[in-house]
């Protein structure tokens, strides 16, 4: 079968999920000036100059004098009329009184072609001259109006900028509790967008060139894992926290925070302890480390990384420096309070905020009208209950949305040829929950620094979130051991949680 071609100039494409827009690239065309000659000015033009019969020659000369100061590439009919039609306008114009009304002078040849013949394109070789030429020509007697031609962009829905869609309405986690964390409601407070706070995300790869991420996100250590899945994941995590709020794409919870990243692969092997230690050395009190990893524990299920002693010690050491560590609990449906974990990091306090995955509110994907065809996630359980795959136990402190979080990457919400404009509304797991908490921490610490001059110690940050978050709902469909959960899990739901 012949390969399907994308239509020239098309700014979107058909995917399995539907028609998605792609980034609009401004065409490489020069700016030019549109000159509207007065009806009654018997001036015509050639490809290089204006011309007129002897009686009106001074009018044409003044136009040419003005253009002589610039390097003009072309003079042509704005409506593509042939030279005969342009020359013909001189005879008609010579018979017209000042400011003739077209409806009154149709019988004198003031027809559509005549009117169009007075529109002239003056194309300078240097686009920067267009504005100056327009200003000069506006002062000439033969000219009714001259202006730089507007640059058209594709028509977009209200509120959207050219290019990517605005996915902010689908980011329910930004908004008021009990569904969201109330971040957007406190952004007006000084520092509450995370200003002055640096977040270090530890995982494996990121698309740091994504259109909705700020430039300059530095990889401070480790080797990235060259894999699309890992790259999408890191991009999605960063998007929840620091994507740029600009009416396209998404808005990060703490979009004034700075982000840096560290790969968990150090010297060719996984070494999260080294990554945490390096991150802690690069950060200051008040900053945040996010551990977006899990690994298989003794029961063959995924557990949180602090199970391993070196990682536990690295977290404690970072926390002792005043750095808040946020750690994904993992997706093993594992009970950390089981005897098999006695004496391990899963039953000790590392100082980290350990984050479980909760069921999002039932209506969040319906914002802006998309997402309606998605899997019925409400079958996961009631909003704010633990999702069946989330790990649980006394060390799990809070939870965030663990299902269908709208953020960057993957391309299911918006695809296209470039990963830089990919968006998703399906980022899930303790992976999606942890950046929500991390963003909340950055907002809280940014606010603390702005208001009090210093950040809160990590243990107070954790207590604050646990005490002020909207309580977790009981019940978790599909979770055999849900009743064993005794941790004071809660979502960071109250606006107060971010208000000092």
């Amino acid at each position, binding site marked *: 079968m012949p390969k399907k071609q994308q239509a020239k100039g098309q700014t979107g494409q058909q995917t399995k999920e539907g028609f998605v827009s792609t980034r609009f690239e401004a065409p490489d065309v020069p700016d030019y000036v549109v000159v509207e000659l007065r009806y009654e000015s018997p001036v015509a033009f050639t490809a290089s100059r204006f011309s007129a019969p002897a009686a009106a020659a001074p009018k044409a000369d003044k136009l040419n004098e003005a253009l002589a100061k610039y390097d003009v590439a072309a003079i042509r009919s704005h409506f593509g009329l042939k030279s005969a039609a342009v020359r013909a306008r001189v005879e008609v114009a010579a018979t017209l009184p000042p400011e003739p009304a077209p409806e009154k002078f149709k019988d004198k040849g003031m027809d559509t072609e005549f009117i169009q013949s007075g529109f002239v394109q003056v194309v300078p070789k240097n686009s920067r001259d267009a504005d100056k030429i327009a200003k000069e020509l506006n002062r000439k007697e033969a000219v009714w109006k001259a202006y730089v031609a507007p640059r058209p962009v594709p028509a977009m829905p209200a509120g959207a900028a050219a290019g990517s869609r605005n996915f902010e309405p689908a980011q329910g986690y930004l908004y008021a509790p009990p569904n969201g964390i109330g971040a957007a409601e406190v952004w007006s407070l000084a520092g509450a967008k995370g200003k002055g706070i640096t977040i270090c995300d530890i995982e494996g790869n990121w698309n740091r060139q994504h259109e909705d991420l700020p430039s300059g996100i530095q990889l401070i250590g480790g080797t990235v894992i060259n*894999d699309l899945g890992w790259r999408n*994941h890191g991009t999605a995590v960063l998007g929840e926290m620091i994507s740029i709020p600009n009416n396209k794409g998404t808005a990060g919870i703490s979009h004034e925070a700075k982000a840096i990243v560290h790969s968990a692969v150090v*010297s060719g092997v996984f070494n*999260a302890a080294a990554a945490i*230690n390096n991150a802690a050395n690069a950060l200051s009190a008040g900053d945040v480390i996010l551990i977006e990893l899990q690994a298989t524990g003794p029961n063959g299920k995924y557990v949180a*990384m602090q199970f391993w002693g070196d990682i536990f*010690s690295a977290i404690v*050491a970072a926390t002792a420096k005043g750095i808040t560590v946020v750690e994904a609990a993992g997706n093993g449906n594992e009970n950390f309070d089981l005897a098999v974990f006695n004496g391990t990091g899963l039953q000790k306090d590392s100082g980290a905020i350990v984050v479980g*995955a909760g069921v999002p509110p039932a209506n969040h994907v319906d914002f802006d009208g998309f997402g309606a065809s998605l899997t019925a996630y409400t079958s996961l359980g009631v909003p704010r209950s633990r999702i069946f795959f989330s790990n649980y136990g006394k060390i799990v402190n809070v939870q965030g949305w663990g299902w269908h979080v709208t953020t960057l990457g993957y391309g299911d919400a918006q695809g296209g040829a470039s990963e830089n404009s990919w968006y998703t509304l399906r980022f899930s*797991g303790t992976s999606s929950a942890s950046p929500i908490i991390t963003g909340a921490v950055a907002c809280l610490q940014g606010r603390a620094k702005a208001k009090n001059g210093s950040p809160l110690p990590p243990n107070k940050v954790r207590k604050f979130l646990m005490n002020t978050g909207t309580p977790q709902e009981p019940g978790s469909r599909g979770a055999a051991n849900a009743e064993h959960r005794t941790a004071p899990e809660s979502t960071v739901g109250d606006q107060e949680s971010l208000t000092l």
Partner: protein
Amino acid sequence: MIPPVTLPANSKVRIPVDLKLKPGWRLDPTHGFFETDSGERFTPHKDLPKNSRIVYKVPGLAGADPSKLSKHERDLQRYVQVILPPGESPADYVDLIRKWPCVAEAHTAPEMSLPQHG
């Protein structure tokens, strides 16, 4: 359900054996042996395949003065990785490494994945 994101099949990331040294022991990374302040020394090369590497997990802490470190930084100082050459299974060496006189505990390092689910 989409399974968690694990290492790609063509990844060159190796899984080492992680070990924790007994108190008082340290690694000489240049010569690849373990020693104590009292002069006791253990050379592990005979137990490992050629081109194995032994490195501190957190090199930045390895040479630090313990008196200037916190309790947990001193604990972190004791962790070492045995990185085997490609094709060698770390599980095959864990029991052997546990018998080294300098080792408090040893296990195959966790193979990390991403906690995505959806």
